[in-house]
């Protein structure tokens, strides 16, 4: 494994962005697409090469690191632009590049004929570049650069159709909400720098291992602040409000944000800081509880959505919540496992949803979807596979990861925690069942369907295959070191292993039966009794709207934050700016003008007046000099 080749992972997307961004106007669409695909395909090949070498190497030799140059240097404190490819970064890179590559292929078909074709691919490549930078950085500051870059790209892509005001608003909302989280992240980085004089992950891990006990509160505060950033980027309650609105972007963008890149960043960062997290169990508890709240809340909100993509968006929030539950339980490998499986089936769901929306000519309202199985069977099969994986039905990918997370939470936090998280999983099954109505039952759309082309079918099909087999990574079941966790090699906090295997097996079997049962019941209700369900929804309009608005959190934000801010802004604009500042500025101008008018009287325009005044001045100076010399 040659560290000098690491930059090969980063350079192609950046180059692709430059080529498409700077010269795209002159290139035909086919070349734009080819450049964009190559920009993601090449590093994918490089990453696969690294993976082969890495699996062959012994566990302790699985780290490739290189330092490109020193960015900042202040005495002992240094920030290097350094890349670090360890198993964690490897898995993340593969998720980003693998799913990202399929999304790029899909976009070639999906965005065909759009005016912003080349702009779209330029942004997509930039997005992948920043995400890779985030993942491969070997220190917090460089990660933050990638972090902000991803935020920028999400803004650009969510607001991609910038003629639509709602798209612009959604882009701004994503940016601003992320800013709130990043505020914490920056504070966390600054605290790290002041407390430990380093931002390097390796050195931080050493510090976590060797620091004396009284350093624990500082570490806890630091991690908590950085977790605030992770909450913003990974859309955790209450900083999740941007994600449902982010559906304004083109569907491949949603797939990229949800499946491959952005929302995973927070989970990745927490895993990256696992040596520090292990020292502060209280923070782990906070993370787990917040993750659980988010999982439950978002699953409930998903149930109330009427828009196909918004259901998926809330489901993403909910699933990321499960990932944080895993992280908070100290099972970092499990969090990453769920991240991988979720990346696959959520990417799949979005791509397939894009194909469905394309078939219906841009219709996103669930109420107008139904019976599409016969029209687009390939897409429907892929979508249903994704739904089953999301709900966690054996033997699809989601079953393994979710089961392990539930067990991990039970082991660490006890039965009540398990019950709540299980209800979250059951709610997941419920809203998955709701989506079955799209494909079965009577047709609800009018007009002939636009059948999607091959480019819209194959990427989800490949991902569906992935959703079927990704569970292999979690084998063997009921064991601490699965395939993936052995590869990742995380150090977890010690777990009291009091409960035996039998309980775990019993719970797995229980969940494996209850979840499909809920899914089947829900699917039955939403396919066969769909009209009844809709009548039910109409009977309680306020409750339905409450769910659909995500518990009215946006309104709460507007009331608590926007209204006072707007008042203050108005006061500052009308009183402070208009009266005081403008008054002062205009007053100065007025006074200067008056003084100028007065002084202008001295300017007669007569040359001899000027000459005489010069002469008088010279005589006066001469007289003063002679007087000073004592001549008279």
């Amino acid at each position, binding site marked *: 494994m040659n560290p000098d080749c690491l930059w090969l992972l980063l350079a192609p997307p950046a180059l692709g962005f430059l080529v498409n961004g700077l010269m795209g106007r002159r290139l035909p669409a086919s070349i734009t697409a080819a450049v964009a695909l190559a920009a993601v395909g090449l590093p994918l090949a490089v990453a696969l090469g690294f993976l082969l070498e890495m699996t062959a190497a012994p566990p302790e030799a699985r780290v490739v690191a290189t330092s490109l140059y020193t960015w900042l240097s202040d005495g002992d404190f240094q920030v290097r632009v350094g890349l670090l490819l360890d198993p964690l970064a490897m898995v993340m890179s593969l998720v980003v590049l693998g799913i990202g590559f399929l999304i790029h292929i899909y976009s070639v078909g999906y965005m065909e004929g759009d005016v912003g074709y080349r702009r779209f691919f330029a942004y997509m490549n930039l997005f992948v570049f920043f995400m890779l930078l985030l993942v491969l950085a070997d220190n917090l500051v460089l990660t933050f650069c990638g972090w902000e870059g991803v935020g920028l790209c999400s803004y650009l892509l969510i607001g991609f159709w910038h003629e639509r005001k709602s798209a612009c608003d959604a882009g701004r909302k994503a940016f601003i909400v992320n800013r709130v989280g990043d505020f914490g992240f920056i504070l966390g980085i600054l605290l790290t720098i002041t407390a430990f004089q380093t931002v390097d992950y390796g050195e931080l891990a050493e510090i976590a291992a060797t620091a004396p006990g009284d350093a624990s509160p500082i570490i806890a505060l630091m991690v908590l602040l950085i977790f605030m950033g992770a909450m913003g980027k990974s859309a955790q309650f209450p900083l999740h409000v941007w994600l449902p609105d982010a559906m304004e972007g083109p569907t491949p963008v949603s797939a990229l944000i949800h499946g491959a890149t952005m929302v995973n960043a927070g989970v990745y960062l927490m895993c990256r800081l696992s040596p520090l997290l292990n020292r502060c169990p209280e923070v782990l508890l906070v993370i787990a509880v917040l993750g659980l709240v988010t999982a439950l809340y978002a699953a409930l909100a998903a149930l109330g959505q009427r828009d196909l993509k918004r259901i998926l968006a809330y489901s993403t929030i909910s699933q990321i919540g499960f990932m944080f539950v895993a992280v908070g339980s100290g099972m970092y490998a499990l969090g990453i496992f769920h991240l991988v499986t979720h990346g696959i089936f959520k990417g799949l769901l979005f791509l397939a949803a894009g194909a469905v929306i394309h078939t219906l000519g841009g219709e996103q309202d669930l109420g107008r979807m139904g019976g599409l199985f016969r029209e687009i069977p390939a897409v429907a099969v892929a979508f249903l596979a994704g739904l089953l994986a999301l709900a966690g039905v054996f033997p699809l990918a989601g079953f393994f990861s979710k089961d392990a997370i539930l067990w991990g939470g039970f082991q660490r936090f006890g039965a009540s925690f398990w019950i709540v998280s299980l209800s979250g999983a059951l709610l997941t099954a419920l809203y998955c069942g709701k989506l079955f109505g799209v494909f079965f039952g009577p047709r609800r759309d009018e007009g002939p369907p636009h059948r999607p082309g091959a480019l819209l079918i194959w990427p989800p099909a490949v991902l569906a295959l992935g959703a079927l087999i990704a569970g292999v990574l979690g084998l063997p079941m009921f064991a601490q070191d699965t395939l993936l966790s052995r590869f990742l090699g995380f150090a977890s906090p010690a777990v009291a292993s009091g409960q035996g295997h039998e309980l775990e097996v019993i719970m797995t079997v229980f969940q494996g039966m209850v979840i499909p049962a809920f899914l089947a019941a829900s699917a039955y209700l939403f396919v066969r009794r769909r009209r009844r369900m809709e009548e039910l929804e109409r009977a309680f309009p306020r409750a339905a709207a409450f769910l659909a608005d995500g518990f009215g959190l946006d309104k709460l934000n507007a009331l608590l934050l926007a209204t006072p801010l707007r008042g203050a802004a108005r006061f500052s604009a009308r009183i402070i700016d208009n009266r005081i500042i403008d008054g002062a500025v205009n007053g100065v101008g007025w006074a200067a003008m008056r003084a100028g008018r007065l002084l202008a009287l001295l300017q007669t*325009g*007569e040359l*001899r007046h000027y*000459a005489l005044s010069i*002469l008088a001045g010279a005589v006066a100076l001469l007289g003063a000099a002679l007087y000073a010399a004592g001549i008279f």
Partner: protein
Amino acid sequence: MTLYHFLGLGLLLFAIGAAGFVIRNNAVVLLLCIEIMLNAVNLILASFARYLYGAEGQIFIFIIMTVAAAEAAVGLGIVIALHRGHGTLAMNRIKDLKG
């Protein structure tokens, strides 16, 4: 004949030039008056060189002569421009600087 005499003569010539600059109306004559003043200064410098300081006064004179030549060239250019712009050289009619 002493330094005193030359200084007196220089002062007198300077006074005549300055007075002429104030009382005459024609732009060309104003330039001539400036030349008188410059020459008066030159005379004073030459006499200082002669009676007190040696060579340096003469070098100053050369420099002043150069400045005078440059001043005459630019000044006459201005006179031509004035004449073209105002159709007259009477300074009491040219008051572009009035505020």
